[in-house]
């Protein structure tokens, strides 16, 4: 069963990669951002399964993005793989440190403390001139192990990079859900006290999940910085975090694929809304979110489940 899902997923990724050169440039760019953001959402899914929804993932997203931007501008580093790895690692380290405090909280306080941390970073970014202040700054074009493409070729290479990273992340996280740490997420949500009495430190488990989510968000931010070629403090603002949570609810916590599909749908809807009715895209987005919450409480992922009629519970 599970390997069939992996196979379908792998095929989907390969198909997307193969089709890219034939698709219009705007769609490829949109998909690139969508998948980069999908990584952040994947991290949120990991936490949501345990009953936690942080409202400040933008903290790690921005760290990943700014790490890439700063290194490429001030250190002159250009290699994409190196930059993205450092961005993700930086976010992971911060997640590890912040986790010591954050893992002690639950529910709305967890959400609020997470929000506070991201807003602190936002404040720092806005007030610091060397970090570009409110304008942010441009990310120099990147190179792939020596090969430095431009224009359409760069777009494609970035898309394939994001696709590859997403595929690997998706696989690793699916495997993670089958481990003890991943599978105990639902028990954490259901009855923490019981787990403590079974000998598990729930705080440490949550700390682990925070680090995973942080690394994923940092990856997403690093890739987004390359894709958009620009970073600014807005990447740490609470509305950015809100957007990620929005997509997580849209996608549902049931499957890994839903994180990426949900993110893609979100970017598409937002793009179309901004195009068609530039003044009212928030109205449209808000309405879509409301309708999803009211009629698809398990998110889009539940639609997949019903279609597949899988007897296996997602656990």
């Amino acid at each position, binding site marked *: 069963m599970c390997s069939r899902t992996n196979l379908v997923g792998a095929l989907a990724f390969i198909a997307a990669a193969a089709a890219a050169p034939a698709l219009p440039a705007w769609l490829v760019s949109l998909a690139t951002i969508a998948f980069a953001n999908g990584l952040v959402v994947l991290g949120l899914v990991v936490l949501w399964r345990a009953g936690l929804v942080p409202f400040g993932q933008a903290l790690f997203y921005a760290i990943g993005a700014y790490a890439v931007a700063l290194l490429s501008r001030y250190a002159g580093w250009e290699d994409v793989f190196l930059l993205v790895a450092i961005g993700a690692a930086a976010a992971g380290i911060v997640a590890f440190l912040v986790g010591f405090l954050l893992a002690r909280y639950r529910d709305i306080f967890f959400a609020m403390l997470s929000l*506070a941390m991201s*807003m*602190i970073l936002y404040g720092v970014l806005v007030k610091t001139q060397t970090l570009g202040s409110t304008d942010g700054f441009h990310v120099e074009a990147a190179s792939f192990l020596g090969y430095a493409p431009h224009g359409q070729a760069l777009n494609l290479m970035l898309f394939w990079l994001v696709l590859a990273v997403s595929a690997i992340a998706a696989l690793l996280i699916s495997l993670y859900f089958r481990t003890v740490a991943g599978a105990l997420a639902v028990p954490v949500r259901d009855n923490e006290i019981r787990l403590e009495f079974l000998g598990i430190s729930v705080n440490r488990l949550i700390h682990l999940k925070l680090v995973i989510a942080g690394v994923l968000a940092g990856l997403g931010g690093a890739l987004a910085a390359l894709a958009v070629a620009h970073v600014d403090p807005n990447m740490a603002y609470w509305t950015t975090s*809100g957007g990620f949570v929005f997509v997580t609810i849209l996608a549902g916590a049931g499957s890994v694929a839903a994180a990426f599909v949900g993110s893609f749908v979100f970017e598409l809807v937002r793009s179309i809304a901004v195009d068609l009715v530039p003044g*009212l*895209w928030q109205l449209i987005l*808000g309405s879509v979110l*409301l309708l999803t*919450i009211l009629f698809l409480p398990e998110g889009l992922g539940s639609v997949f489940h019903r279609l597949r009629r899988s007897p296996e519970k997602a656990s």
Partner: protein
Amino acid sequence: MLTAFAILTDGLVYAAYLFVVAIGLTLIFGVMKILNVAHGSFYAFGAFGAASAVGIYFEKGWPVAGGFLIMVLVAMGIGLVLGLIIERGLLRLVCGRDEVIVVLVTFAASLILEDMILLIWGTQSYPLYQPLAAAGNFEVGSLVLSGYDMGLIALAVALAIAAHWALKYTRYGRLLTVVIFDHETAAAFGINVTVVFTVTFIIGAMLGALGGAVMAPKISVTLGIGVEVIVHAFAVVATGGMGSIEGALVGALIVGLCRAAAVHLVPQLELFVIYAVMALVLAFRPHGLFTQVPPRKI
């Protein structure tokens, strides 16, 4: 010495603003256990509504005192309408679901309301200077204090006293205290919890709109003001304890004074001092300054 006094007055004014904005939010959370993201939209609607209505009023040259009254009335009217629509129309539909879902519903509502403001008032900004000018200035030593600012502080104090008195000494206030403690217990006592929810939400919405209305003369009333306010209000409420009005007061004071100190002494910290205070308080008192300990579960 002068700086200290300046910090004090600035801090109190900022604290007054924070308190007026936070009290509605903490009331709604305390009674309904809902974190209302749309509170920022109530604030924005109040500000725009006041800017429009009061602007027109003053242009007509009618008596000054009436202008202030109109401000309050407009805010209450807006709060009533919006509060009713959101609570009855929207929150009723997700009653009983996971609290994160309810927060997201209010987030969605705030997005929709944000664009409604755009539709109604457009992208330009609406300055509202007349109330400021009408209130005049007065001097204390070498400092010039704005009469309007002093009025703001007076309003916050009046609200705090009124809230305290209402909760402790009126029948409705005591009903509210029971509902805050536990919904089911209150219902078992025959309290119509549904009506209490609606009334509370409307009061909270009115207070939010009032916050916007009274702040309108001090800020540039333009798109996006609701967004920043909501995070400030959250931080104050979380610091003080969700659902506690004394908490909102103390939280507002602490944050207001800290921010004023930052502005005068270490300007780089200004933007995030409010969150740093919140994080610091939560690190030592995980549920805020004034909250009750949850009862034993096993």
